């Protein structure tokens, strides 16, 4: 029997991890991720989670400890945020290239400088090329559910890749919601203990953290790429199975809302999606055919799944909490590449907002739709929600 509790996003994720029963947890605390680590430490202490909790001295060590334990066949969890993610960046490619199915929660937070503990997506989006699967969630319930789905995805034989689940810092990590927590019995068949053929074994020594010269290195990378692409369909399958179990489905790699007949679609990532849907409802009541597509998984990028929602649009906007300085938001770059591959030549706008914890209001979201409706194609890339006059050329 499941129970409903009033908990934060961080706590919800910790509950999901408890149900996944990792044998090893290695993590270093950093705001706004800290609570997930604290709760898991509590669970290990009080015996509700039988896991080895390794107190490490840095994020770099956290990820390397996780990799070592994963190589021994253990199910492993770690979590980080912002500068911590950047500090472990070197280890991210080791883990993904080594195909270790580690699950990590990242609390999305601005990157210094300017120093800030508040949220945006510049930390995780800077690591798109790390070879990890990246998923963004919208609320505390989805956080818990994705902790479970993430282990299934990571450990799928045709994927075998680490998964990073992203929660918007504070907006999700520290906001309390009613969350349904499945019982251990409920998820026993959905997520069985990890079994793998590639664990290190004294009696049958093999090599870990391998070197590959130019004669096969490109092929290893191609295999990694194919495995990542396989995660799109795999997540879909897992999501459907989870829905049968709990009644909750999130729609796989993308989640569309009123897209079928939409003229104007805003693409979102993470927690802002709910407010955009509310705004779309208002616009629909005013006679404007608006819609939303939430990208849930940005690596692998769900090209075909996204394009299906954009077939009949006049304009598409990408609302993102990221800027790649000197170009545009990275989500926009990815969306445009998909549009071009699909020979879809709808006007495409980039709305950069919510940087460093700046609130994205309903008014700002309406501004985005108005820009698309008014065909403001002279400013395809813009910052929204500025608090001061932009007078610098």
């Amino acid at each position, binding site marked *: 029997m499941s129970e409903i509790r009033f908990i934060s996003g961080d706590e919800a994720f910790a509950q999901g991890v408890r149900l996944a029963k990792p044998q090893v947890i290695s993590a270093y605390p950093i705001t706004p991720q800290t609570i997930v680590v604290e709760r898991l430490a509590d669970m290990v202490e009080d015996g509700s989670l039988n896991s080895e909790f390794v107190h490490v001295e840095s994020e770099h060590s956290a990820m390397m400890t996780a990799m070592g334990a*994963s*190589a021994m066949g253990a199910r492993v969890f770690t979590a980080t945020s912002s500068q911590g993610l950047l500090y472990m960046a070197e280890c991210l490619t080791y883990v993904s290239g*080594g*195909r*270790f199915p580690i699950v990590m929660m990242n609390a999305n937070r601005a990157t210094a400088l300017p120093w800030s503990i508040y949220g945006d997506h510049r930390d995780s989006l800077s690591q798109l090329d790390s070879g990890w699967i990246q998923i963004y969630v919208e609320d505390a319930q989805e956080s818990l559910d994705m902790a479970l789905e993430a282990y299934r995805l990571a450990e799928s034989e045709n994927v*075998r890749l680490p998964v990073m689940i992203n929660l918007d810092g504070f907006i999700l990590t520290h906001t309390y919601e009613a969350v349904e927590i499945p019982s251990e019995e409920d998820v026993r068949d959905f997520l069985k203990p990890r079994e*793998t*053929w*590639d*664990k*290190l074994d*004294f*009696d049958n*020594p*093999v*090599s*870990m953290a*391998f070197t590959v010269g130019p004669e*096969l290195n490109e*092929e*290893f990378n*191609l*295999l990694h790429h194919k*495995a990542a692409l396989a995660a799109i369909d795999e997540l879909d399958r897992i999501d459907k199975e989870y829905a049968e179990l709990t009644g909750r489905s999130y729609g796989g790699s993308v989640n569309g809302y009123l897209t079928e007949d939409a003229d104007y679609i805003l693409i979102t990532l993470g927690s802002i999606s709910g407010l955009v849907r509310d705004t779309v409802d208002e616009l629909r009541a005013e006679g404007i055919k608006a819609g939303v597509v939430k990208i849930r998984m940005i690596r692998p990028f769900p090209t075909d799944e996204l394009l299906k929602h954009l077939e009949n649009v006049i304009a598409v906007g990408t609302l993102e909490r990221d800027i790649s300085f000197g170009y545009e938001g990275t989500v926009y770059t990815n969306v445009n590449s998909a549009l071009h591959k699909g020979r879809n030549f709808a006007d495409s706008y980039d709305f950069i907002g919510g940087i460093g914890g700046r609130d994205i209001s309903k008014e700002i979201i309406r501004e985005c739709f108005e820009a698309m409706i008014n065909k403001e194609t002279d400013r395809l890339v813009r910052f929204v929600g500025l608090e001061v006059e932009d007078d610098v050329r």
Partner: protein
Amino acid sequence: MIKPSLEPRPVIRKLSEIPQGGSSKAGFLVDKNSGWRNRTPRVDVDKCVGCLQCYMYCPDGVIRKNVIEIDGKTVTKVDIDYDFCKGCGICEKMCQIGAISMEEKSE
């Protein structure tokens, strides 16, 4: 003693033949590699006390623990893998009781 066997380098013609996972057979131990050696370490098994200093300091990982029975007692000695020893002599330097000596020949 666990010694990985020499195996010919695998010939990979298809992507599906490349191992995918955290660890796998490396395809490195394909040849003996001892041709650089011009001095050869010899272990005096009677002197060896099994302190394993040579094992710890060998830069090529070719010294291994060798647990054997002598007069009904289980004792720890060491073995040297001459297929890969380069003859650097660090084991001789590390051995505090003079149980390892370097012979002036390459065999």
